[in-house]
């Protein structure tokens, strides 16, 4: 057995999952709406309607449309955006918006993990202490806050009151940048607000889960072995503690992906960050179905892929898992 076989098996089920979820999306769109209206709408340049009808078989029976849909999918054709007057959907999403969202989510989550996991570990090690109770209480409050409200508050405080961050946007508009560096600096300046918003939003749950799992780990016998053996506290918490406690947190990380998407939509719209979240917002406002459909598909891909990666990481760290 071993890692390779496990990876292959999980890859297969992930692929199936992907196929099924996209198909479900396909049918939801076409059964609840009008198959033609999904691909052809106002805002498209003249002549586009005919092209799309031909490509997607919009006047043909549904099952045929289904087949054509997949064929087009693998050719990278997901229709044209209504809002962006006929620009192919794929172009609307990639590369800029997709990258912006990935950067935001990635940095936000990373920040969140960097703070919540070590704190969670220490809180579990010192269960019941002031530090533990303090952060636990804080976390309970944090997880009951709606994502968009948190974003609004952060924008208010950091942007309006403290003036530390700009009040929105990805980069300041109508400004030419003298060098790549100044552009990057401006970008990062705009990134800070939404990034912190994401990090705070996810802090609570990550902290609590790590803490619970960590508290269990530190009650185990082998911790006593290493304490007796004179191993330092740092090693005990961050090597033995981390390796053993991280497992439930890893599974949770995979599940978080779905919440991440929600976080993206709300945070991006509040901060006017040009990513996929605000694209979805825009698309919904304007009934831009091809974009919505494509967004759903890509998000599904990301969620399934991250679940897969999390599974692999889990197997990598816990050698007992592979042997099932």
């Amino acid at each position, binding site marked *: 057995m071993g890692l390779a076989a496990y990876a292959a098996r999980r890859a297969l089920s992930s692929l199936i999952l992907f196929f099924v979820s996209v198909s479900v999306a396909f049918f939801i769109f076409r059964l609840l709406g009008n198959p033609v209206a999904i691909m052809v709408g106002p805002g498209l340049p003249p002549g586009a309607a005919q092209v799309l009808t031909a490509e997607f078989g919009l006047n043909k029976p549904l099952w045929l449309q289904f087949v054509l849909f997949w064929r087009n999918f693998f050719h990278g054709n997901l229709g044209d955006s209504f809002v962006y007057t006929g620009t192919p959907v794929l172009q609307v999403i990639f590369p800029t918006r997709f990258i912006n969202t990935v950067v935001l989510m990635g940095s936000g989550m990373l920040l969140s993990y960097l703070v919540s996991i070590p704190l969670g570990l220490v809180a579990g090690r010192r269960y019941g202490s002031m530090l533990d109770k303090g952060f636990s209480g804080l976390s309970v409050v944090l997880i009951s806050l709606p994502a968009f409200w948190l974003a609004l508050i952060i924008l208010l405080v950091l942007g309006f009151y403290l003036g530390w961050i700009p009040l929105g946007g990805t980069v300041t508009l109508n400004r030419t940048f003298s060098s790549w560096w100044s552009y990057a600096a401006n970008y990062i300046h705009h990134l800070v607000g939404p990034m912190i918003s994401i990090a705070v939003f996810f802090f609570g749950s990550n902290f609590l889960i790590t803490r619970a799992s960590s508290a269990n780990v530190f009650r185990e016998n082998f911790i*006593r072995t290493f304490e007796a053996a*004179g*191993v330092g506290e740092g090693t005990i918490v961050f090597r033995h503690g981390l390796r*053993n406690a991280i497992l439930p947190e890893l599974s949770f990380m995979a599940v978080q992906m779905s919440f991440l998407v929600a976080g993206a939509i709300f945070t991006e719209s509040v901060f006017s960050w040009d990513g996929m979240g605000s694209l979805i917002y825009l698309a919904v406002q304007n009934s831009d179905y091809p974009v919505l459909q494509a967004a759903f598909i890509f998000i599904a891909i990301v969620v399934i892929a991250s679940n897969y990666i999390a599974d692999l990481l889990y197997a990598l760290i816990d050698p*007992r898992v592979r042997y099932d």
Partner: protein
Amino acid sequence: MNGSDVLLDVRGLSVVYKSFDARIRAVDHVDLTLKRGETLALVGESGCGKSTLGNAIIGILPPNAEVSGEILFEGVNIAALPRKQLRRIRWEKIAMVFQNAQNSLDPTLRVGDQLVEVMLAHAAIPRAEAQRKVKELFSLVGLPSEYHRSYPHELSGGSRQRVIIAMALSLNPQLLIADEPTTGLDVSVQLQILNLLKDVKRRFQMSMIFITHDIAVANYVSDRIAVMYAGQIVESAPSEELLTKPLHPYTIALTESLLSLDRRVKKQPIAGFPPDLSKAIAGCRFAERCRFAVDECRRVEPPMVDIDGRVSKCFFAKQMGDRVVGYDYRRD
């Protein structure tokens, strides 16, 4: 007795566990001495305090434990040492082999790496040298050297225990405390481990404290046996003598259960339960379950009576000796 002969001298040691509503006297004014190269067994039923005593000596009691008394190791009172210095002592001078090796190793790391980590925590030697030492230790305890790449769950109970023993030996300690190292293992494996411990002790010229509930095992492995009950040592004597001529009612009961095993006599478990250690106890702690007890036993705590170099905590120690228990149990 020559002073430098004595490796460990415990004087009046008490350990009290504090919780919200109770103070539990797990160990009550215990005295014991251990000479260099000697193996002492601590025998008693669950909850008698033998593990606590072992943990106190190596210094890994939980934070809610209150320790009073002295633990003199090579003349130095280690019970009063600050943390940093205790870390030098721990493992380098005194090491421990734990019971229940099932969970005594980190399941996410290879066993070899765990030994290396312990070694590197004490000495700034290059990693390669530590790894070499691991292989040496493994062959010493009877493990194939390739095992260093295994994970704990891949090894059998006996092999895991050998790993634990190897880990304990890694810094050449002078005193090894073995806390129920064979509990939970198959009987055949138990014998192997016991022999391994005896062998290793001889080779490294260590002293050993062997904690167990099984008096037969204690006899097999040790030079002297100290019997513990309800946090106190009730009798202490060279192993053979203790078994052939016990001087305390509790020890008598223990040896009788041995007897019954061998002669297929109906086994008489010791009736009753150990006393509640959170309350103050008047008189002898064993009095309630003792078939020889008289009124005075329940009121006054018996002194440690010295008979021919042995000790027993009973008013009637001498009389116990005059009884014909007569089981000639020789160590092979």
